[in-house]
Structure formats: C-alpha cells, structure tokens
C-alpha cells in the first residue's frame, strides 16, 4: 500500500460515517450555531432587561421549576413504593395511572383549562352548588394560575417519573430487605436505611433531568393560561415564543432562551458526570 493512502478498511469506515456526520452538522451544529448567532446581539439583552415582564418571568420560571419538579419527584418516590408491590390489581392500576403521560397534551390540558374556568368551569360550578359561593378565579390571578400550571404539569409528568423510580426500586436486591427484616428494621427504617440510600443517586439525577426538561415545558403553560393574565404567568419557554412569534422579534425570543444557558449548562454537565460515575455510595 502506498504511503499517504487510506487502507480499504479505513475508506469504508469513512463512507459509513458520512451520513452521520452530515446529519450531525445539519441537525445539531447548524441550528445551534444559528441560534447562538441570533442570540448574540447585545441589544436583545438590553431589551429584555428593560421589559418588566422579563424579570417576572424569571421569578415565575424559578418558582415553577422549584415547586413543580420537587413535588412531582417526591410524589413519584412515594407512589413508586406503592406500585412496587406485586399484586395483580396494582399492575392493572399502574396501566391506568400511566394514561395522563401517554395521551396527547392538547386535549387534556385544554380540558383542565375549561374545568378551571371561573364562570362556567366544572370546578367552580361544583363549588357554587355545594357552598352557594363563587369559587376562586383559578387562572386569572398570577399565583393561583402558576399553582394550577404546577398541578397540571405534575399530573401530566408524574407517571413518567414514578416509572423511572419504580425501575430503580425494582433494581434493589430483595435480600437487602430480607436482611433488614432479620436485623429488625421497621417499614420506615427499611425505607431510610435501604430504599433511600439505594435510590439517592437516581433521585438526584432525575431531579436534574426533570429540571432541564421542565424548563422546556411549553404546553402546560401555554395551553392553560397562555402566559396570562397580562403576561403574569409566563415562563422562559413561553416568553421566547411570545417575542419571536407574537411580537416578531426573533432575536429577542432566542435571547430569552439563551439566558437560561448559564444555569442549564452546568446542570447538564453535572448530570452527565453523575450518570457516568454510576452508583457510587
């Protein structure tokens, strides 16, 4: 073989690689760089900081992530402890329980929106019939609106995280529990000394992953309150869309998302590191 020429094996290797390189350039490198270029204009950030909606949106996003993600995962941890029991009816129940996650967002979240309508929604009609008082304006107030967004988000994504933590629980060797039984541990002690230490890593990883994923949750907010009233329940995901497509300020819209990067990138790195490290005690 002449020096400087590739062996046949290497040539074939390159040929097989080409489609993936093309896809990676076209679907990852190009859009990300284009996004960064769009978000590189300093004027966009000045515009953002001077918009009072933006600061409120940051607060909303932090509250939404902090409350929804933590409640969701804590409930998932508890529920996975229920679904881990091997009973036929529990298995059937788990199929029903998965449904909110499996069905499409738009009809279900819009149903919530109608149920929560202050004047003719199902919930307030019920409250009126039972108490003869008007129910609260669920979606017309910033904090109760955000609260309802959290409820809908948790309702929608709880099954998924429950499944993940259930898988984690199933991976704990049974003889650890038997050993704890012989050692004299109560149910709560078994959770404290066996279950939680075994799930701790998974739980933290899930929290990181869920935070990153929930930051991009557009549906729960947009379909329930639309970011309103008066932009009081916007999060970064919906605000970016509002700028880009509602107000035709594409660059500002992209900048809204870029703002989250300094927080998100370290989270991502942290998570990938944890996943690589595996189960360290």
């Amino acid at each position, binding site marked *: 073989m002449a020096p400087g020429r590739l062996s046949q094996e290497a040539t074939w290797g390159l040929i097989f690689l080409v489609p993936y390189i093309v896809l990676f350039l076209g679907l990852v490198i190009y859009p990300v760089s284009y996004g960064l270029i769009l978000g590189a204009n300093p004027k966009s950030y000045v515009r953002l900081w001077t918009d009072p909606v933006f600061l409120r949106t940051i607060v909303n996003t932090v509250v939404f992530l902090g409350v929804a993600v933590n409640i969701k995962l804590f409930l998932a941890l508890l529920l996975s402890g229920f679904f881990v029991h091997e009973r036929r009816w529990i298995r059937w129940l788990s199929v029903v329980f998965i449904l909110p996650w499996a069905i499409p967002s738009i009809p279900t979240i819009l149903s919530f929106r109608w149920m929560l309508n202050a004047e003719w929604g199902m919930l307030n009609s019920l409250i009126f019939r039972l108490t003869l008082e008007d129910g609260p304006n669920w979606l017309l107030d910033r904090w109760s609106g955000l609260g309802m967004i959290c409820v809908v988000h948790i309702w929608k994504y709880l099954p998924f995280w429950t499944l993940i933590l259930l898988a984690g629980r199933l991976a704990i*060797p049974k*003889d*650890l529990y*038997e*050993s*704890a*039984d*012989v*050692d*004299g*541990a109560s149910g709560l*002690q078994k959770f404290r*000394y*066996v279950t939680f*230490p*075994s799930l*701790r890593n998974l739980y933290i990883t899930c929290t990181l992953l869920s935070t990153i994923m929930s930051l991009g949750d557009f549906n729960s907010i947009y379909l329930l309150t639309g970011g309103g009233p008066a932009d009081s329940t916007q999060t970064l995901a919906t605000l970016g869309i509002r700028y880009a497509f509602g107000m035709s300020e594409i660059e500002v819209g992209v900048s809204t998302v870029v703002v989250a990067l300094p927080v998100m990138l370290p989270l991502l790195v942290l998570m990938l590191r944890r996943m690589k490290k595996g*189960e360290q*005690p």
Partner: protein
Amino acid sequence: MASVSVEAVRKRYGALEVIHGIDIAIPDGEFVVLVGPSGCGKSTLLRMIAGLEEISGGTVRIGQRVVNQVPSKDRDIAMVFQNYALYPHMTVRENMGFSLRLRKAETEVIAERVQRAAQILSLTELLDRHPKQLSGGQRQRVAMGRAIVRNPQVFLFDEPLSNLDAKLRVQMRTEIKALHQQLKTTSIYVTHDQIEAMTMADRIVVMHDGIVEQIGTPLELYDTPANLFVAGFIGSPAINLIRGILRRDGGRCWVATEAGVDLPLNGDAAGQDGQAVVYGFRPEHLTPVENSGLLSRIEVVEPTGANTFVYAELSGAQICGVFSERRSFAAGETLHLMPQLDRVHLFDAASGRRLAA
C-alpha cells in the same frame, strides 16, 4: 443458643405443595447442613425457619417457643445470605452494628461487640471500608460478622459460599467450621454441594423433591445410605450403581446383570432370590486383583497425584475406581477388579430402598 425443631412442616404456593411435611429435630449447639439438588426445598425450609416465608402447615420451634407467627426480627436468629446482602452505602462497621443499632443498644456496647467480631474474623483493618471495596471472601466474612455481632440463638446460612471461587470456598468452609467450634451456636446451613455438607456438618439432612431422604452424620450417610438417591448424591466421585437380579443358590449369593456378569455378594446379603436390585459400590472400595475378578476395560485414566481415577466399562455400565497406590493403568487395558464385599450396598430396584443385611 437454642434447639430448633421442625415438625410436619409444609409449604404450599396456591395449589402447589413444594414441601411435604418435614420433621427435623436439631439439638442445641449442633451444626446441621440441609443438602439437596436445586429445587428440593432446602432454601424454602430455611427461609421458613428464618420467618421470611410463611409456614403453610406444621410447627417450627426455636427453643421451646413456637415461632410460626413470630416475625423474623423477634425470632432471635441471624442469617447469612448467598449474595451477602450487605448494605452497600454503610461501612463494614455500620453494617455489622446495624442490627444492634436498630435494637437501640448503647454505642459502647455496639463498638465493643463489632470490635470483637472483627477480631474473630480478621476484619479489623477493613472496618471503615464500604462493601464494594472488598473482595468476595471479605464480604462473606462481613456477612458472618454481622451475624456474630447479634449473638443470636441460631445462625442460618443460605448457600453462603456459592459465589466464591473454589479455593476460597475451601478456606471459608474451614473458617466457618472453626467459628462454630468456637461459638457453639446452633447453625443451620443450606448448600447444594455435598462436599461442603460432608466436611462441615455434625449432621446432614438430605432433601429431595420436598421430602427428607435421610438424616445422619456424614459418615452414616456415606456408609449406609438409606436409598439410591442418598447413595448417588453423597460421595465424589459418585457411587457405582449396576442393575441386576439377586440370585441365591445354597449359601452362595450374587447379582446377575443383563450382560451376563455375576457380581459377587456376601452369603448373608439381604433380599430374595429373583428380586430386581441395584448393586452399589464406592470407587475406593474396588481392588485390582490378578484374576477371578470382574473383567473391566479401562476407558479413561485420570491421575491426580494423590489418587488415580480410573473410568472403565463393566457389564455395559461405566464404573469409576479410585486407587491410591501408584500403578500404571492404560486406556484400553483390561483389568480384573474386585469390590470389597463387606462394603457393597444393595438397593431394591423398585423402591430404591436399601436392603438391610
């Protein structure tokens, strides 16, 4: 320490009965090994004694107390699991002291007992490590340490050595036995390995398909197996078994095989003329003779240094002989072999039971 008694114990999973009424009486301080092939119910029985498995019928007593309804933690037992079941996030020290901590023992008491157990098992250096930093043998020792610290009435071992390599298994076997001689705690040990059973047990319980086949000391089982199953299960290499018909003629007695070979017996052998029997002899009870023995053709020779294993064909069956004297055997060679007549075992072919002399 306490005696353990298992009376007419049964285990059912729905309609399926896996243990069919077992009786075992274990006196205080004895080391009993439950042995049998996989699926014989030995682990299930142990787990019933431990309280990890419900008892479907019969009674289990620890000391004088019936424990059928007593939860595991109140039975005053300690168990060593096959996969060690060490708490992965606790150090060796915490693992060993865990049960005492749950029982709200004082810190000094826990520290002292853990220290003592660690000394007995040479674990002192490892007390601050986590289980994943230990080798298999060390983990096994921690699991035993955890049991010792409790100072329980009964130790239960569920195949504790099966995850170790062969050399370590032999070493741990000796250690467990030495430990028992030191502590004298009643111990029930489950294994499928008959050599473990033979070497460690005061008494062995041979189980098969959910029943007890025989209970006895290792040598009792070896010398007078109650039936074909026990005969075949205990001993390595396995006993040689050849089918035939018992023949008597005057004072003479022999077993005639289908291939026309007459296998010699003592004149006082049990059984009736014409009875279908199985003729058994252990590989080490064969003697090479000059002539007049049973003619066998050597198929394989395995010298191990101490002994020579000879596999040969006799009357259509493959038999094994173990010889300790150095002698040159060659494959293909024909050999005259003679079983020691007073060590021949005779079993009824239909029931498999031993025919008593």
